[in-house]
């Protein structure tokens, strides 16, 4: 199947920093794609380029087969976009903004919007100014989803919201995925990402550090703790094709995050001189994230 979003060597230089330095992505339709990264890693810039609000310095991308630079309107017709702190018209009521938006789409928009609003328990006659943050986010989500977009792009939509709202968003994302639509999620909530993502990518300093199926990644990265008799004892790193993501020492213990671990390597370490114990554990996504975005990089 044709990927629904592709980027090709996407680069963005700003005057004071480089937001993106050659990003290659390819997102399959019907999946939930999660983009993880620190604040300022370039996630929002990437989304702005994908939605046609920013022109990249170099490189290209397509969304649903359309180039956002050439035809941003067509791209935006295909997607639904919810950002954090969405800017809606404060003075309108919930019903009014629904009606306003609905007039630009077809007939099915309004009933779906109404249903969503009812489901989220938001009163239609309230002005948006008087809604809480969570309710605003729900209204923005309803507006974005009511026209059944092929791709739903979420840019940290639940930052600062209570768990109930986050749960609503999670359910919406899952529902979209279950009906075969694509979800592009940029988030910090690692626990949510672990539940809901099919594919993840970790963006660190403008580059993609990790990209793959979540299940594969989780299975392939292990935390290895080696206890030695002497803190200065040297231990040989695992051979290819294993990859050490980070390394940390504390007293007589050494902690490695290794990708592509083989049982033989564990045996090899166990039999190394001066090694008292070797323990391994599958790394959690949070630990993977920290490992990929830490300073002590092996690469």
């Amino acid at each position, binding site marked *: 199947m044709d990927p629904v979003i592709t980027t090709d060597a996407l680069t963005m230089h700003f*005057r004071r920093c480089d937001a993106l330095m050659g990003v290659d992505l390819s997102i399959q339709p019907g999946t939930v794609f999660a983009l993880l990264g620190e604040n300022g890693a370039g996630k929002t810039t990437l989304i702005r380029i994908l939605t046609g609000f920013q*022109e990249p310095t170099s490189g290209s991308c397509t969304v649903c087969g359309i180039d*956002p630079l050439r035809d941003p309107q067509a791209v935006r017709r295909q997607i639904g976009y919810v950002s954090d702190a969405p800017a809606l018209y404060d003075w309108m009521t919930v019903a009014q903004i629904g009606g306003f938006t609905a007039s630009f789409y077809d007939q099915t928009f309004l009933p779906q919007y109404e249903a969503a609003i009812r489901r989220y328990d938001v009163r239609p006659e309230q002005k948006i100014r008087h809604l809480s943050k969570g309710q605003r986010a729900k209204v923005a989500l309803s507006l974005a989803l009511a026209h059944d977009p092929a791709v739903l792009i979420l840019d940290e939509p639940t930052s600062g919201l209570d768990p109930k709202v986050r749960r609503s968003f999670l359910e919406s994302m899952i529902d979209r995925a279950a009906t075969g639509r694509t979800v592009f999620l940029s988030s910090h909530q690692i626990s949510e990402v672990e539940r809901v993502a099919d594919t993840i990518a970790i963006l660190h300093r403008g580059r993609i550090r990790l990209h793959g199926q979540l299940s594969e990644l989780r299975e392939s990265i292990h935390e290895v703790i080696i206890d030695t008799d002497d803190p200065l004892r040297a231990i040989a790193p695992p051979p290819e094709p294993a990859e050490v993501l980070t390394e940390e020492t504390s007293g007589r213990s050494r902690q490695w995050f290794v990708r592509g671990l083989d049982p033989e390597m564990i045996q090899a370490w166990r039999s190394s001189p001066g090694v008292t114990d070797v323990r391994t554990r599958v790394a959690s996504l949070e630990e993977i994230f920290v490992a990929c975005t830490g300073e002590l990089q092996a690469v």
Partner: protein
Amino acid sequence: MSSDTIIETTRTVPDRSSSTAWFWWKESKQLAPLIMLLIIVAGLILIMNVISTAIVNPGGFWLPDEVVLLVFPGLFATGAGPLMVGQERSLRTMEWLALLPISAKRLLSTKLSVAFAGLALMWCVVAVGIALFGLGNPHDANWTIGQRPSHSDNPISYPIWMVHSIYVLLSGFYVSWRIRHTFYALILLIPLAFAPMIAVGLIAAYNDRPMMSGTYDVLIGVFTLLGIAVMAPLSYRAAMRALGPERAPAAVPLLELPRRSSADASVDETAPRFGTRVAALVWQSIESRRGMLVLLVAMLLVSLLAFIRLCSIDSRLRGIDQFLPFVTLLAPLAVCWLGTAVFKQDGAIEQIRFLADRGITPQTVYYARHAIPVAILATGLLLYAGWALTTVGGWDRDRTPVPSLITVAAVVFLFYSVSQWVSQLVRTLLLAVILGPIISVIVTVWLLTAYTQLALPTAALVIVSLLPLLATRVVMRRYMDATDRPLAFVVAAGVVAAMVIVPIVFAIAFVRGVPGMTAEQRNTLLAEAHSARRQTASPVQLMFLDWRSNAERTLVPDSQKDLIEKIRNSLNANSQDPRQWINGLETLRQGSFPLQGDFYALDRFQSAFVLHRMRWRQDNDAESFERFAPWLDTASVLLKGLRRSRQVAQQEIADRLEVTLIETLRTPEMRPHRDAPAVRSAVASIGTPASRAAARRRAVLASWVQRQDPQSRSSRDHVAALETMPRGLVAWLDEPLYESFVLAALDGIQASKNRSDDGSWRRRLHSLASPKGVFESSQYSDRFRQLPAAATMGENYFAGPGQLWGRAWEYVDVAEFLQAGDDTTSPAPGITSESAPSEPTATPGSQASEPEASNADPSGSADTLSLRDSIAANNQITPTEPIR
């Protein structure tokens, strides 16, 4: 709208027209605050006009209604662009709007259409207003459309105004699309909006000739059309650029600096260190709006320099200098915007809430936010003061007046105070920036008018000016918590009420402080006054026939005549026979007409009379008396006529004439002639204190009543004290002051009739007639009144009526004096020197009179003696030979 109706409407009409309808609905609702602003401004101006013309009477400050109406399209055109585009961009709702399936062209065209529709609506309102209220001035037309003259004396015609407003609207859109920050966009809009005027001004400056208004008009129209042609594509391009994807910055670094991602920022930079909390806040308030502060300081400096240059020009403004007054106007605008910047800058609300979250007290935040603008203003005032000290301003026609530091400081303070108050009340930056200056101007004009014309005390002015600052301080805590809305408006209503009511209250108190008559007094006196007035027959005017023969009227200019010759000619100028010289004597003698003349006429008669009297006294024989007798007779006739008059001024003239007459009769030389018919008639004409009191009373009351008749000339008479009253209250104070005068005069008349000691009426008359003088050295003082009446008669009447009332001359019995034999040769006191009125006539004044009597020069006359001797007593000058 309920959700059900939405479903109904959209299900049945699911096409483009409904989206257009929704879009128009949204844009119109976004314009609503602007319309509200316009209505408020127009309402404020109208209210100010009404209050000002009602209270400050006459004059006062008011704007022509035309300006009020023109406010609507002008402000609308200015604000539409920033409100519809700039605000959406700064709130980021434009981005959300761009996510909907609306093409950029459609978005732009809808916004423009709504704006133009609004503008057309404004113009219709103006047209209706002008037609309905008949505004404008069709007579002073400056231009014609076709054959029909214009409707006003505006230098720019209405059609051109319309075109200009379209241009301003387009420019507003352009700057809003180009510049993201609303404030800077507005700043750019100002020169753009005035560009056609500036261009035409430059052309006029180049020609160095004043332009005819028709040409001016046409040229402005041409340049405006040019402007529209330029702005339309520019704003379209700017809109397309703003709505499309942001361009990537093209800068390529020269050096290969290590690549940093935005995540690396901020930790390496050293944070600034502050000693105190207030310092940190002040630093924040500078850094967060540095650009704006720089801009405003630049405006202030430029304006100051323009003003300095303007004051150095002492001729008509030529060439490029014609723009200087307009550049000077930037300063008050900058002051207002400094006030606006206190509470309304980008991120100001967030900054304040940020501080609130950290538990910083509202007081600290308040002072920190005011610190920088106040500092800037104080520096500006210091610079102004420094320069003003070195300049001499003037009020010549061509010179610009240099206002004093206090005036400038007061105006600056008021502007700042009101602007910062407005900026706390109004939610959006755009409205605060527009509304701030307007309200500041209105409030300042009102308060300064009250101060100068409505007797507002300085302390009250200062307190009222501080009220807006106090209001913002009071609301500060709530404002920091974003719950200020109801309280802020309540407080605002209070401040407005105070500003309006306090001056009015003080004005009322001031008016009440002037005591007039009580209602009963007025009623009783009015009855008498009306009857007094009713008895008046039409007066006869005192007129002189100029009998000088043609020979005397020479053509030689005065400077070439010999001085003595001149004096001799003038002395001989007046006729020997008063009956030939004065017109209407016979009428006066037969009938009982009142006489009317002014002081110049009296002066002329009196000098002639005294001259002839001197001649008689010199010769002192029967023949000279025969020549003098007609003068006596005439004087008595005139006196009687004057006494019949119902005007206070005439009674004063009568007093003076009577003093002269008494002085003439009370000399020993007159005794031999006491049976002469002239003398007898003269004695008869001299009245008693009672008769004089009656005549004066009639005159005072009749004058009072006649003043109230708007058609009579004397309705413009007023008490001199009125001129020192605040100009705005003059209309209210006129009547009470005159009533006080009437009461005081009546008291004085009564006192002089009864010869009583009560001098309070004198003080009152003094305060009414010459309020700027000191009582003890005035004509009403005891010391003055002790001088001989004749000596003080020359003092100007303008110092007030009643100077001669109740003085010793009134109580003299001339007939008795004349009948008295030769044993009392010395003239009884009362003429030559005054004694205290309470004492009987025959006493201590005689002490002063005796040396004069013993020194009496038989060839001199008593009057000159008294005058000369009193002067001599002061100056040690020996009397000289009388002039023949």
